[in-house]
């Protein structure tokens, strides 16, 4: 059974058909990558899934429950966490407070201990008292992921997580994501093909607001339509 099941999703912005009839499934415990050229509708699709953008048509079911009309904050409580594309931590709050916000939402009793553990998961425990805005870019991205994880989600949506990371940091990120499954299902929007091919078990390719292809990394690499539209083959 699917963890997430979207059927016939539509979202137009004026004349722009950002998402134009998309069916999309996530299996529990998989790492699924969403790729496609710029403007293909990737961010709109995860916006619809996370509830930041309301769908005009179609249904979304999560763990068997219809969540199409649920507001974003209620979907977080169902277990869908979203880590932002542009680093969107609270720069004027400490690293501790940033993560504590997510930890207390998940209902931890001992806030200090649980927050410390959540920071240690991404290796930021030494930075707890620093202002989040003073962290390096790579550390802010890790903080963003720590906040997503601290919500104890069943589905973690990562929007361009490796953008702006150094090569060494990308390796650390891949190890981190691999350690999450199968407890957490991961949906990844990613431009870095190396990361996608290395991490993802299944890939969905979007183009012009529709699903162009879906399959394993090897299958996607061999797909002629994908090559034409995207990989520049």
């Amino acid at each position, binding site marked *: 059974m699917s963890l997430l099941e979207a059927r016939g999703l539509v979202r137009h912005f004026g004349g722009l058909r950002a998402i134009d009839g998309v069916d999309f499934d996530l299996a529990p415990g998989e790492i699924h990558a969403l790729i496609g050229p710029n403007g293909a509708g990737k961010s709109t699709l995860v916006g619809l899934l996370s509830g*930041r953008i309301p769908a005009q048509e179609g249904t979304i079911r999560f763990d068997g429950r219809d969540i199409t009309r649920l507001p974003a*904050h209620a979907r*977080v409580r169902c277990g869908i966490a979203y880590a932002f594309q542009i680093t969107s931590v*609270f720069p004027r709050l400490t690293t501790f*407070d940033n993560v504590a916000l*997510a930890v207390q*939402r998940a209902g931890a009793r001992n806030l200090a201990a649980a927050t410390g553990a959540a920071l240690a998961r991404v290796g930021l425990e030494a930075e707890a008292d620093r202002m989040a805005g003073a962290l390096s870019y790579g550390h802010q991205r890790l903080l963003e992921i720590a906040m997503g994880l601290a*919500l104890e989600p069943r589905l973690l949506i990562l929007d361009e997580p490796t953008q702006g990371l150094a090569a060494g940091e990308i390796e650390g990120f891949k190890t981190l994501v691999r350690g999450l499954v199968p407890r957490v299902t991961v949906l990844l929007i990613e431009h870095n093909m190396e990361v996608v091919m290395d991490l993802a078990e299944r890939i969905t390719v979007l183009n012009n607001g529709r699903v162009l292809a879906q399959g394993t990394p090897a299958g996607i690499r061999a797909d002629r339509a994908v090559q034409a539209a995207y990989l520049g083959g």
Partner: protein
Amino acid sequence: MRMIALHLAVLAVLAALQFVLPAYHHTNAARIMVLATYAIGFNIAFGYSGLLSLGHALFFAGGMYATGLLVDQGGWQPWLALVAGPLAGGALAAAVGLLALRTAGPAFMIVTLMFAQAFHLAILYWGRFTGGDEGFTLSGAARRIGAFDLADPATRYTAAFLLFGAAMLGCLALARSRTGRVLVAVRENEERTRMLGYDTFRAKLFALALSGLISGAAGATYGLMFGYVGGSFASIQYSILPLIWVLLGGAGTVLGPLLGTALMFYLIDWASSVTTASQFVVGAVLILLVLFAPRGLLGLVRDHAMRRLP
């Protein structure tokens, strides 16, 4: 721990002051503590939650009129009417919030201002009950709560101190609580807070209602303490004053409202004793504030010396 000790020390100083202050400053201090309570209420919405309302006079005067009218015309016991004041302030804020919180930024300022102006005009319009512009005074009996007579300076000081102490400790507890952290998060980045699973509308409504409750408590106490309820307390001036006090003392700090209220009170007091252009002096101080300490005096202290000041 050190921070809690600091706040308790401030309360201890305030409690001790009543035994040493000369009569003039004694009355001033009582007045300042009640107005600072109003500023604490305003600060919970503005300083902690980022809700800049220009209509808080509605909640301050709402509490004052609820208590004043219930005692004066409703024949209620003063203590019971004093409980009704904060409830009126909180209920008004919740009702205004349900509508005004659909907006944000400048629109929120305008909508809250509009509600407060409507209330001010209503007070003037129904002058038969409210006394209109002149307001009404409260008789001696209306100001007695049990054995305590609020017309007596020592009792008045104690009442103001208890009100301020409760509001300040409540604000301190809120600032250090999980709820306080969520309110600050809403102020800093509402969209991100929503994506952490928080219903930010509910958080803002809570902040505004609590802010209105404290403002209403201050208004109700002020009316009983000084025996006067008047339309000027519902005017726009009383919406702007707490903003200035909080900006001067430090928005989003527990002690900022007291510091700002006291400084501004004595600045006006001093300036009007040396010149008729006292407003000019106040304006100059506010310009200096914006230039050199845009986060207020305690904001300056927090930025440079005490990072953990709540």
